């Protein structure tokens, strides 16, 4: 094992980790806001990837340009999902937790089924884009441009989210609602609006990830599943509800995955992720940055 191999693996792990973080942040945001786990998170990612693909295939719009469009579309989609489904699920009197789980889980299955019906299960990919297939090489270390841009987008999106939450009225309303949804009603904040905004934001973030990922990953109806699993671990590792924790968790997961693949047979690389996760919940059950 040469130094070059190690640095390359860590670099690849970091780039992938930033993307895992971006995917997980939306999940953490929604959970932090209203204690609901979006089990359709992977499917949100999937439709974002398809949206990017179709904008490319029919209108030749490069994923880099369509990313804001896709994020905006997912924002609307997320808000609509809240208003049409989740709003009613959280109101359930009996078995509220179960109703929430099954409503988003059911949504996931429906979305997957519809995608398979309308888009066929064939594997799609964005065959050529401005970034696709390009690689920069620094001292023998290869950094694929799509992932590099994906990482930059992730950092920028996280920065913007941070500013949004801390510097805007909407962001403050979001924070306030997550701290005490009952009390904000007293000061005239419409809880439903804030929740819808939260779902919109969470979906927009995963939409952004999907658009960036479409450049270098294949697209098919089940593509969300493996990323969603990693996103759940990432959120739990970083600390439930902590947006910063999710982002940091993503980076850790990416690095751990790369390191495990270097030390153990690559078929066991997921073992590293889950081992670290188990260790964290063992010594710090609320997650690294969790505040509950």
């Amino acid at each position, binding site marked *: 094992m040469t130094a070059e191999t190690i640095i390359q693996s860590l670099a690849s792990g970091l780039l992938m980790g930033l993307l895992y973080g971006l995917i997980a942040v939306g999940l953490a945001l929604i959970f932090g806001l209203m204690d609901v786990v979006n089990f359709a998170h992977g499917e949100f990612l999937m439709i974002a990837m398809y949206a990017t693909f179709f904008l490319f295939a029919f209108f030749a719009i490069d994923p880099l340009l369509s990313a804001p469009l896709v994020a905006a579309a997912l924002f609307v989609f997320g808000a609509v999902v809240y208003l049409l489904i989740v709003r009613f699920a959280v109101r359930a009197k009996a078995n509220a937790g179960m109703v929430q789980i099954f409503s988003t889980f059911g949504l996931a299955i429906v979305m997957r089924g519809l995608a398979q019906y309308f888009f066929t299960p064939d*594997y799609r990919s964005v065959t050529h884009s401005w970034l696709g297939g390009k690689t920069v090489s620094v001292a023998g270390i290869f950094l*694929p441009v799509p992932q590099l841009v994906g990482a930059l987008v992730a950092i920028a999106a996280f920065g913007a989210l941070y500013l949004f939450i801390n510097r805007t009225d909407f962001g403050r309303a979001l924070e306030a609602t997550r701290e005490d949804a009952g009390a904000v009603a007293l000061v005239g904040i419409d809880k439903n609006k804030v929740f819808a905004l939260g779902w919109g934001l969470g979906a927009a973030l995963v939409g952004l990830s999907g658009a960036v990922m479409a450049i270098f990953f294949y697209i098919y109806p089940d593509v969300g599943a493996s990323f969603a699993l990693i996103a759940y671990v990432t959120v739990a590792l970083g600390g439930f509800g902590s947006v910063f924790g999710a982002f940091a968790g993503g980076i850790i997961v990416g690095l751990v*995955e790369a390191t495990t693949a270097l030390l153990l047979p690559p078929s066991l690389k997921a073992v590293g992720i889950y081992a670290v996760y188990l260790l964290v919940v063992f010594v710090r059950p609320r997650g690294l940055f969790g505040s509950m």
Partner: protein
Amino acid sequence: MNITRRNVLLGATAAAALGPIAARAQTSEVVIGVIYPFSGASAQMGVDAQKSFETALEVINKNHDFDLPLAKGEGLPGLGGAKVRLVFADHQADPQKGRAETERLITQEKVCAVIGTYQSAVAVTVSQICERYQIPFISADNSSPSLHRRGLKFYFRAAPHDEMFSAAMFNFFDAMKKKGAKIDTLSLFHEDTIFGTDSANTQLKLAADRGYKIATDIKYRSNSPSLSAEVQQLKTANADVLMPSSYTTDGILLVKTMAELGYKPNAIVAQDAGFSEKALYDAVGDKLEGVISRGSFSLDLAAKRPMVGKVNAMFKEKSGKDFNDLTSRQFMGLLVMAEAINRAKSTDGEKIREALVATDIPGEQTIMPWKRVKFDEMGQNNDADPVLLQYIGGKFVTIFPPQAAIAEAVWPMK
């Protein structure tokens, strides 16, 4: 009416007289179960397989002038012209779902034979259930060698298995070395289910027997979100030949990641699966000029056997795709099964099994480059000669063995 002895006798006679008619009426239709992934990550394989089986069904149930089993005339003449009907079941690439669905096909749908399954891991459980109910199973496109070595009586495979495929690859390496190509080290890259594992074990053994050095042997988790660590190791090993055994999704990601990390092997010799899929070449075909994959089908054969082109056109009308290595094997799987049922003149599992054991279809009556279809005592057709195909200028051409080749191999790839 009083129930007298005479009436009972009359009734019995009538029933006995009606018997043969009833039996014939029962077999006006022969129901065969087809079990594939129709949802989940490999759903497209199932969708394509369905089109392939429907093409074979059309050959059997309608009148054609091809020299294929059951093509001439309608239905199965051995069963009074009975038509074949297919029942499709979805195993979602999950061996346990495969087990349950096979049980349902047999007990609820009353199928008299089963064909499947794409994933070898699922074929393991499906064939066990078939064995228990004494229903013949044809493994149309599973290539794991361990499948036919389990002493099952109702398991049959007309197509080659990975030892035959891999042996063809090593024969090819030997031949290329004689011509002066440098092939000393190999990198294996295989997924972690029975297909990849069996394939790698076979290749490891063949490499040891024939004096090739394994530079690295990477077993990876299928459907991983990232393969950069794996590709990094392949790049470090930098063997003369990269030998992947991957399904489509991983194949696409592998090739993309290789390009991103600047790894260009001298040659790729792939164990089919994803590397025979149109989706893979649509996605990353530009990076695969010169890739070699094993196969048991080549459209080249249409030049020698025009019916191959005709059947391919029938399939293309349904699916929008040419036959590939998988769909051609699926097509033949159903023909072989129907041909045996026809000879058995019965839908009884044991009788069909006996007919399968006696199968002897000459290669010219298939769409494959096989010598013939004849099963050994383990249900394996050892005369299913594999070929090696090279992807040149956007299509596959046969390069090996010499008697089937229509072009010289381009070596190294680029």
